[in-house]
């Protein structure tokens, strides 16, 4: 029997993978992909809670599915803007490595 906790644990592990990617990798494209992994981990727990917490009519709670819909939309917009910034950065610096972008470093 699959419980709510199983879905939450899988979601937590996926979030940790994305977090480790943001911490460890220095390529900006990989960092953006890891951000996507973290957003999707949050989506997975939202959908699991939506299925777990049924409405009085016995259907899934659709409020959180609407929220997931918003998260997916915002994530798509975020990727588009992030990759555009990446292209603009590559045009001026010829690098996507965060170690080479230290102008704002204190």
């Amino acid at each position: 029997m699959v419980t709510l906790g199983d879905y939450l644990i899988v979601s937590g592990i996926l979030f940790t993978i994305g977090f480790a990617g943001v911490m460890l990798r220095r390529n900006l494209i990989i960092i953006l992909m890891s951000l996507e992994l973290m957003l999707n981990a949050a989506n997975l727990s939202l959908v699991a809670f939506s299925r777990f917490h049924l409405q009085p009519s016995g259907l899934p709670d659709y409020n959180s599915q609407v929220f997931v819909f918003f998260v997916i939309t915002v994530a798509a917009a975020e990727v588009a803007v992030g990759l555009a910034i990446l292209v603009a950065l590559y045009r001026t610096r010829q690098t996507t490595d965060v170690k080479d972008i230290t102008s704002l470093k204190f």
Partner: protein
Amino acid sequence: MQDDRVSGVWDSMCNPQSAIHCPQSIMSPLLFWTFALLMLVFGVAVVANRNPVASALSLVVSFLGLAALFMSLDAYFIGIIQVLVYAGAVMVLFLFIIMLLDLRAQEGRQISWLALIGGVTVAMVLLAQILYVIHNLKSAQQAFPPLARSTFDDVRNVGLLLFGSYNLPFQIIGVLVLVATIGVVLLSKREPR
């Protein structure tokens, strides 16, 4: 009419006490762990691969596994949106940018072991905290309750909520996407020097 009658028959058989297999309980443990492992393994591959193209393709497989998990939670609309938006649009965007920038696998860079150990440690601490919270959650040990009906209009219900209670956020999201589009065009335009 026919469809209503059939689903009514299913509903009468699908009370929680009956042992008859209900059509909506596709949350079989084998399928769940298969897709969860698929998603997690390819999620690790996204982070661990040195080649950005391999990372992007691993991300596709990871998102497909996640879409299967969404469908196992009876969220068909979200699962299909996941495949369309992530495995379709976002992934093409990533691959297109990788192709455009002509990124090669980073080979020369030395791995900083101190940074690696530090990052893994912080991530493990975060994971331990998440698992602790889930372990102390009372409802985490419970199975999912059965649905009242075997067939339901997923898209219709989400759409009613989206255009009813969430109409204003929906339109704000539309403005956000428009702003993002204009911003991307402005950012990628070559400035005259």
